[in-house]
């Protein structure tokens, strides 16, 4: 039966299904349980807000912050860690990414093994790597650089191998058809088309590394975080806040520069 013009039947209201209710109830129950486990209590919001300790964060001792030995010098170390690990990690990532893309991999076992290994490496958070390296080769920036190199490698191969996957296979087929061997074919058939993305991803990884290297020191792996951790343990929260302001500004500036460079590249 068709509705008369100017009058339409109202669609039936969707019914609430038992499964939907069940899922919602399960999620609620899990949330309530988890909230108890982490010590959630609405009153804690107010306690956090009204805690007298906040006063310890103020005023910021700017003359201490700008004294070159206190913050500037460890900050330089932070950059050194970020720079070397970006260069090493991204350099290593180039061949590994080619192995990890189905388009450019030399053979099936290499493809599977490199993917599996890199998935596991990426599942370990960066600071876990830092702590492992500190334990293995001693406290300091050297361990931090090692950890971030591994971390950069893992992130870079993820980003870059996806770019390679999406590359135009035509030039590569042409190079192979002309009798090119594996490495030279990649060099002339794929690399020129994906290189701008490679550089853009590398800049992005550098940004990540600057951020990660700021907190590395919290686990003893050098850089500005070392000073942050020390001042935290002395309960000099005013100095901590001052350093955080500086970190915030520097990281923000680097991000802006890097974002504008990357926009020009792609």
């Amino acid at each position, binding site marked *: 039966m068709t509705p008369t013009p100017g009058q339409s039947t109202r669609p039936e209201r969707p019914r609430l299904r038992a499964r939907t209710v069940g899922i919602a109830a399960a999620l609620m129950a*899990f*949330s309530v*349980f*988890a*909230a108890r*486990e*982490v*010590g*959630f209590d609405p009153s804690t919001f107010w306690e*956090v807000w009204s*805690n007298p300790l906040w006063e310890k964060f103020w005023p910021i001792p700017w003359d201490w912050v700008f004294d070159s030995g206190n913050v500037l010098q460890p900050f*330089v*170390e932070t*950059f*050194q*860690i970020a*720079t*070397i690990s970006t*260069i090493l990690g991204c350099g290593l990532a180039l061949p590994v990414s080619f192995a990890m893309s189905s388009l450019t991999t030399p053979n099936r076992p290499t493809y599977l093994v490199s993917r599996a290994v890199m998935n*596991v490496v990426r*599942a*370990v958070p960066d*600071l*876990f790597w830092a*702590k*492992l390296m500190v*334990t*293995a*080769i001693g406290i*300091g*920036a*050297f361990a931090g*650089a*090692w950890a971030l190199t591994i971390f950069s490698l893992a*992130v870079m191969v*993820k*980003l870059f191998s*996806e770019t390679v996957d999406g590359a135009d296979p035509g030039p590569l087929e042409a190079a192979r058809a002309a009798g090119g061997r594996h490495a030279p074919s990649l060099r002339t058939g794929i690399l020129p088309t994906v290189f701008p993305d490679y550089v853009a991803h590398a800049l*992005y990884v550098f*940004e*990540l590394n600057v*951020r*990660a290297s700021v*907190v590395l020191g*919290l*686990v003893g792996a*050098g850089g500005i975080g070392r000073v*942050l951790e020390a001042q*935290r343990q002395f*309960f000099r929260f005013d100095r901590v*806040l001052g350093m*955080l302001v500086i*970190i*915030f500004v520097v*990281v*923000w500036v680097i*991000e802006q520069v890097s*974002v504008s460079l*990357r*926009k020009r590249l792609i």
Partner: protein
Amino acid sequence: MTATTQRPAPPRWTGERRGAIGVVLLVAMVWSISGLDVTLDRLLGAPSDAWAILRQMIPPAFARVAARGAVGKVFESVYIAWIGTVIGALLSLPLAFMAAHNVAPIWIRVPIRQLFNAIRAVPELILAVILIPITGLGPWAGTLAIGIHSIGTLGKWATESIESIDSGPIEAVESTGGRWVSSMRWAVFPQVMSTISSYWLFRFEINVRASAVLGMIGAGGVGSELVSHLVFRDFPAASAVLALTVGVVLTIDTVSAAVRRRIITGGVGGDDSSRSAEALSDLTGINHR
């Protein structure tokens, strides 16, 4: 007449440019290595040190760490991540409606967007450093840090999905005389909720990793277990904790990705690869594009 094609002229100065870039990279490497206080024997010794520890890590001492309650600690990390995500989701949702350019006026949109950006710029770990003296050591510090940080990214993602909706339903509600709240509830909400809830799940995946790290500075969860085993150089135990963490992280990733795929079928906008790039940027709060 024979058709001759002119070969294009090779680009000039490529060799010189490559040389210059090489020199810059080399100088950067030398400069950065100079600051890491690397001696030759440390450099040569590092791989063998790492290898020695790797050998001690096998086999992992699962039974021993389980007896110490490591499994509970892993789950504590999951709870922290979950509640942090819930806090972030609940607080970011109303804010996102005030930040989207198609539904909110400019005077409220701009400050809220800046708030999202500012929150995203501070990593969880730094938030936890600030919060621990206030809340004391324990999972609540980590939960708050993750909750606050999640507002920034969840807010940004939700804003973007609200901005990508079809404006037809809004016009329909307005033409029947509906107010702002009704048009949000009946025109916008049904369009974006599937996408936004998949973002919540996605943020939960990221937060599981983040909360594992937060434990390292005493904000609750599995990180503290790893640190204490490594401090006592108990490598079989450390590797067991590490394996448990990686196992849980990968399991949650897989399950959550499957659920998200199920939710998103028929949802608005956002493909998986763009979100994985977003995720990476989000781990540290940087704009990828």
